[in-house]
């Protein structure tokens, strides 16, 4: 039943295989293990605790932490990309068209105006695809780890709230040494979020 060391090499021939086996660890020397265990707990009792007293102090959140999705309303062009890429169908967008006054003889331009932008956080799975795909830097991850509502329906947050959360968005961070961005920027592809923010 047990496999010997020599058999081991035969069993997986693809690669050189080094194995370890429990061997002596199983043998019992009565009492030593019990005393060692007591020593470990006593040592920990005499060293300071490592926990953070949560409501009073909270561990710092890293800049990429996925807390809430904030909307920079001015940047949104109602392109619907985020709503389409969302796996959970939890982004609701409504907008209308407006024409800009012609300036200096130029032709009047039509552009989209955002009327409603809502995210249903009850459905959201915090994957961040919407932030990733947004081509105009309108969506950001903000840092917030303790927001909650009394009712599921209230978890659908509208534009005002999402705008407010822009204040929770941390500044962009530097990348690790050696980072060179995507290999070759795909022609029409959205660049990765981190790089994008760094440039912003």
């Amino acid at each position, binding site marked *: 039943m047990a496999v010997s060391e020599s058999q081991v090499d035969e069993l997986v021939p693809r690669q050189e295989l080094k194995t370890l086996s429990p061997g002596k660890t199983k043998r019992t020397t009565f*009492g030593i293990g019990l005393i060692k265990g007591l020593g470990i707990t006593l040592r920990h009792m005499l060293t300071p605790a490592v926990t953070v007293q949560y409501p009073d102090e909270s561990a710092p959140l890293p800049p990429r932490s996925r807390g809430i999705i904030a909307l920079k309303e001015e940047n949104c062009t109602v392109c619907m990309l985020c709503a389409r890429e969302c796996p959970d169908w939890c982004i609701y967008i409504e907008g209308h068209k407006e024409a800009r006054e012609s300036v200096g003889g130029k032709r009047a331009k039509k552009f989209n105006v955002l009327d409603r932008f809502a995210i249903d956080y009850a459905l959201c799975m915090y*994957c961040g695809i919407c932030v990733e795909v947004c081509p105009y830097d309108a969506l950001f991850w903000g840092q917030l780890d303790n927001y909650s509502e009394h009712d599921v329906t209230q978890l659908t947050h509208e534009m005002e709230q999402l705008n407010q959360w822009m204040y929770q968005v941390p500044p962009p961070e530097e990348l690790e040494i050696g980072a060179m961005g995507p290999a070759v920027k795909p022609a029409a592809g959205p660049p990765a979020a981190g790089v994008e923010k760094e440039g912003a």
Partner: protein
Amino acid sequence: MSTLIPTTDRWLREARLAGDATLRTEEMVLNIGPQHPATHGVLRVVVTLDGEKIVEGTPVVGYMHRGHEKLFEQRDFRQITNLCSRMDWLSGLNNEIPASIAVERLMELEVPRRATYLRVIMAEINRILNHLMFTGSFGLELGATTPVMYAFRERELLQSAMELATGGRLHFGFIRPGGLKEDVPRGFVDLALRGIRQLQKAIPDYEDLLMGNEIFKARTVGVGVLDPDLALEYGVSGPILRGSGIPYDVRKAEPYLNYDEFDFNIPVGTNGDSFDRYWVLIQEMKESAKIVEQALLDLPAGSHIGQVPKRLTIPKGAIWAKAENPLGELGYYIVSDGEAKPYRMKARTPSFNNISVVPHMLRGAYVPDMVAILGSMFFVVGDIDR
């Protein structure tokens, strides 16, 4: 209404009616779970007991079936990577890797070297996180409440390294076909190294606190022995299979990413009992720490994602791609009909096969052994049910 257990009066009355006052014995059917501390999650085990001895034990699954395979068919691969991590929530990143590998092989995408290194680093950190969780919870199941707290202490640094890079603590969603979502931020390498060093310093404590403990040995050595042939027949994989003495590890048997460039060992148990499985788990953490160390110190400069078209349309075909999840062999069988969404995506999760062998191990064990067996089968219910 019939009672589960006859109360004093009823029993005496029945005995008198039956004309004899002698005590009779009968087997008792006990439902363990779906809400029970030993099944961490919603696994249910129906056991037939003869006193404290288990005559028959059958796991009942499905309490957490979320229909991942159906959901996969409605999503493209960027969305799928985010869904994959929800199957086995303790090793999210390891779940995403084979899905991406499958797409990369089908589309013949090239993954930059830096991305591969980072994938290995994060997959191994994730493996350590997963193993720490199970070393802790196994102690908890045997009544030792302290190891789990130490395990969480060690988890914290590595967990925050992962959080620093991906923004998530459980569901990373960091792997993309062709590379990674983005490059890691500055400070990741330092933080991860610190986490690894702290872990390496703490592992002797785990070994002394539980593995060296005579009570622990009494509870685990010779308990829940899994025969290697039975394990193979049931497709058991991961630390459990290796605990039974079979050195099958996808990282060595069919190297993916660049695992063949790193120096690490495969810990293998000798007789497949709960102790061996636990031992394998602890040793694997050491080995993973070695891999992470090598990869971190050797991390090349470069891109985090290869040349990937904006819209991933998968060529027609089928592929079976697997990887070594912390809990065993995780694979996806993907059938594509040339669309962005897979036509069929079967997830072969390790816990499913691992748990299906449990009835054989429960037979003849005591109720407390059941806890030791289930605890050392290292399963995540989301991974069984998908």
